[in-house]
């Protein structure tokens, strides 16, 4: 029998343990709220509208995932909300989805295969109402806000029993089951490689006074709110895993699995990848906010390219840090996927590259892709524009910064290729892409409303980069760099619109650029100016027996006509060179259809050139931008010589049959 004193002591001890435990829990919770673990900042960087807690178990044999998701949503919209839309994007990989219909429309050779089929199914969906949980599973309703396709199950919505008041939080509890298909577009498996993207129910964004939750289209990417992600992922112990955020914990389970705990902060999506044979390499970039860990997950056959990936990552991060702003996350994971269809994609703090074992150094594909996807950490990851409605704001600005950074690293002429004496710049790739379909769609069009996937790609990436390069001509390279820096610092961790960007550029440059943006961003006009003629005629042409022509003595009437062939109006410089060594620079507002420049000089025209600095890359035809009076056939003969040789080689091969 125990004495009362002992009971009292035991009560006191229990009470003390409870209090201590509660304090520790509160302290931990407070720490979780206040001290970021996944970023280098000392406080939260975004409004954190959402907090996802996901516990998921991946079956690598069946390629399925069963998960429970607790989503805490803060209503910062300023108005009560009673309906919530969710993305369920794995359902895009079904033959009747809008995504697949668009694939079929834009790719004539495309054939549906059952192995592509993937699905995400909501098992239960409840909302926490005080201590109780109300089951809303029966309230789930699939909607198709973009095209009304009743077979598309990529967006669903639920109506709550009562609205969520402004500044109130609501908590959803969702259990779901994913069936992954073979990688078709950036998510799924191939062999033992797994890319988990768009794998959990993700709430839409309340934006500009309405829910913004588009269906998944073949050309579109994503749009979501910032918040925190606490993800527990259970996978077989053999797997090497990479994920968004940072890994906090790893526990080995008795059933041959392990549970990895990740936390992502101030991000708006969460992706992961797993493969037993990933080769892991780590490095650090010392940025302005501190050390960032670069974690590379390379394919076993690509280890020879590890250093190449690491080098471009560090070079890119250095320039982004110096030019546009700091990278605030503690880690960036770079995945070299086992399937190229999972390659070249961005997720917050996790990107996928694209390479092949034989890739020579002179082909910069590795650098282009890795640089581009890292750039998305800024233009999409932090400046989280709406990729459905303003795709050029992330892809276009990112293509521009990709070109600038690769130009800086490799040189302007060799930033895409420097192989066997053949060179190509990254920006000329972008420009040539644009020139292939220049006038079907404006940059400002919704991504899924372009005439087809090609137009979307060439305009959103190629034209946008070219438009920004041409903008340098108007405001200067350094001013545009400052504009991008201001735009990044001002709008990071928010959802800016195209007008936010354009106004920032106008503000920083101090210029009214509306005339340019109206044509380049909102219009489909094509820019094409040409030197129509450049001629020199003797002033004494009327004399029957004129004196012999003498250089420096005979007077000539020199005339240059510049012609606007396209419907895009742009001010130009025209440089006219004379055989006396003199030159003249003319400035034309480019508004009329043509302009004539005349000079009476004791010299003849040698050449006339529009845009001598070659900054107006939007000009469709760079060959008609200049005219040299004396014929120079070297380029033609060079092409002809190669053509002749290839024709001979073809003949020689064919004559082997004789």
């Amino acid at each position, binding site marked *: 029998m125990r004495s009362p004193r002992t009971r009292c002591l035991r009560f006191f001890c229990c009470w003390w343990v409870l209090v201590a435990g509660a304090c520790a829990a509160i302290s931990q919770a407070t720490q979780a709220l206040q001290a970021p673990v996944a970023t280098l900042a000392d406080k939260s960087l975004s409004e954190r509208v959402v907090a996802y807690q996901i516990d998921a178990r991946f079956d690598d044999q069946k390629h399925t995932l069963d998960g429970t998701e607790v989503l805490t949503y803060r209503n910062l919209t300023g108005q009560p909300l009673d309906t919530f839309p969710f993305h369920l994007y794995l359902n895009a990989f079904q033959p009747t989805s809008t995504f697949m219909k668009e694939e079929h429309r834009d790719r004539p050779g495309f054939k549906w295969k059952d192995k592509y089929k993937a699905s995400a199914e909501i098992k239960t969906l409840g909302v926490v109402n005080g201590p109780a949980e109300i089951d809303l599973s029966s309230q789930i309703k699939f909607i198709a806000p973009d095209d009304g396709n009743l077979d598309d199950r990529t967006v669903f919505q639920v109506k709550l029993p009562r609205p969520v008041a402004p500044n109130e939080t609501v908590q959803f509890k969702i259990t779901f089951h994913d069936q992954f298909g073979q990688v078709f577009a950036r998510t799924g498996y191939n062999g033992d490689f797994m890319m988990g993207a768009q794998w959990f129910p993700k709430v839409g964004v309340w934006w500009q006074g309405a829910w913004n939750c588009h269906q998944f289209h073949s050309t579109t990417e994503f749009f979501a709110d910032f918040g925190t992600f606490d993800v527990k992922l259970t996978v077989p112990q053999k797997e090497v895993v990479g994920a968004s955020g940072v890994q906090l914990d790893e526990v080995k389970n008795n059933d041959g699995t392990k549970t990895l705990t990740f936390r992502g902060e101030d991000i708006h999506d969460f992706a992961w990848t797993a493969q037993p044979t990933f080769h892991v390499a780590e490095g650090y970039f010392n940025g302005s906010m501190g050390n960032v860990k670069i974690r590379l997950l390379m394919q076993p056959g690509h280890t020879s390219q590890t250093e190449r990936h690491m080098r471009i990552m560090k070079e890119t991060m250095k320039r982004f840090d110096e030019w546009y702003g700091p990278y605030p996350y503690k880690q960036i994971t770079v995945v070299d996927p086992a399937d190229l269809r999972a390659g070249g994609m961005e997720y917050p703090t996790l990107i996928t590259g694209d390479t092949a074992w034989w890739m020579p150094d002179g082909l910069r594909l590795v650098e282009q892709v890795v640089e581009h996807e890292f750039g998305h950490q800024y233009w999409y990851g932090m400046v989280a524009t709406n990729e459905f409605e303003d795709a050029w704001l992330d892809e276009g600005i990112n293509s521009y910064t990709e070109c600038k950074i690769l130009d800086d690293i490799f040189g302007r002429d060799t930033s895409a290729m420097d192989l066997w004496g*053949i060179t190509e710049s990254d920006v000329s790739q972008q420009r040539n892409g644009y020139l292939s379909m220049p006038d079907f769609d404006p940059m400002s069009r919704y991504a899924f409303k372009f005439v087809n996937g090609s137009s979307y790609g060439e305009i959103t990436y190629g034209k946008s980069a070219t438009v920004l390069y041409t903008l340098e001509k108007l405001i200067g390279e350094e001013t545009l760099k400052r504009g991008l820096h201001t735009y990044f610092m001002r709008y990071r961790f928010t959802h800016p619109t195209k007008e936010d960007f354009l106004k920032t550029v106008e503000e920083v440059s101090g210029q009214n650029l509306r005339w340019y943006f109206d044509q380049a961003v909102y219009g489909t006009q094509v820019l094409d100016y040409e030197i129509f003629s450049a001629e020199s005629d003797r002033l004494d042409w009327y004399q029957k027996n004129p004196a012999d022509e003498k250089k420096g003595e005979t007077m000539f009437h020199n005339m240059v006509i510049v012609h606007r062939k396209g419907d895009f109006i742009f001010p130009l410089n025209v440089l006219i060179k004379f055989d006396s060594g003199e030159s003249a620079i003319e400035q034309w507002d480019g508004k009329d259809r043509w302009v004539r420049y005349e000079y009476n000089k004791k010299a003849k025209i040698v050449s006339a050139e529009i845009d001598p600095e070659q900054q107006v890359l939007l000009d469709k035809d760079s060959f008609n931008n200049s005219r040299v009076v004396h014929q120079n056939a070297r380029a033609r003969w060079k092409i002809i*010589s190669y053509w002749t040789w290839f024709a001979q080689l073809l003949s020689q091969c*064919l004559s082997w049959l004789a």
Partner: protein
Amino acid sequence: MSDQRGVLREGFHRFWRYQRVLWFIFFISLAFGHFSASPAIHKLDGITDHSLASQRISEMFDYGTFSALASNPEVKLFEAGGVSGGFSFVFLVGMLFLTGGILEAYRADRKLTTREFFEACGSYFWRFVRLLLLMLILVIPLAIIFGSVLSQAGKLMLDVAQEKNGFWLSLVDIIFIGFLMMCLRLWFDIAQVRAVVEEEYGMWSNAGRAFKLIFRNFRSLFWIYLRISVVGWFVFGIGVWIWTKMPPARFWSTFIVLEIVILAGFAVRLWQRSSEMVWYQRRFLIPAIVAPAPISVPPAPDPLLTIAPAVPPAPQT
């Protein structure tokens, strides 16, 4: 193989003695190459010759500028590619025509008159056309197999886990189908040699006999063919390597290097032809000279040691 020693050397000598055939073929090829480029010349002259932008092609080789030029609606350079295909076909027919004269020259091992040469060309042309059609019956399925395996290899190469398998598959495809194609070519080369040397008219039976011949002498014949081919591949590789090292602005020099590669390609093919002719003639036409067995001759008597016989020799009966 020992009886075929010197075939390559003699084949090379015959080829060299009648090298005017090589120059003739080379200049026809050059002319055809130039003709096939003529639509491109006309498309380009108004665009590149007076533009400063063309310096990015002449002074370097900027692929972006070239690509923009090639896809320019006023140029559409690659639409002229069909003309090159047409000229290549005409060249094939021309080579088929010339083969009779070339083989006749190698057979006779003397300088043919122009009349003799072209008479031989005409005389064997239709026979060689029939042989070509026979060969195509085998080449086309091989080409289809080659293409489909290469396509599968390409698909594998897209899958990173399989990309090296894809590479090896394509390499095996190239080597295996290449080997079969070489065997086929060798077979029909010998059939053409037989048609000229034996004055065969029935091409089916000629091909059958050539097949038997190849089957029985495969090692020696293939060895001849392969060694000369290796020389050709080596020259091609060296030529292309030199081309990659040359400054892009010096395109006339690079053109000369590339033309040497073409010339070497024709030379190698003609050397193969002449060697096959030498091999055939040695094998079937020139009787083997059997060296007589050495006769043991008694050594001449040393005059200093000669001792006169005591008894005079008996008279011979």
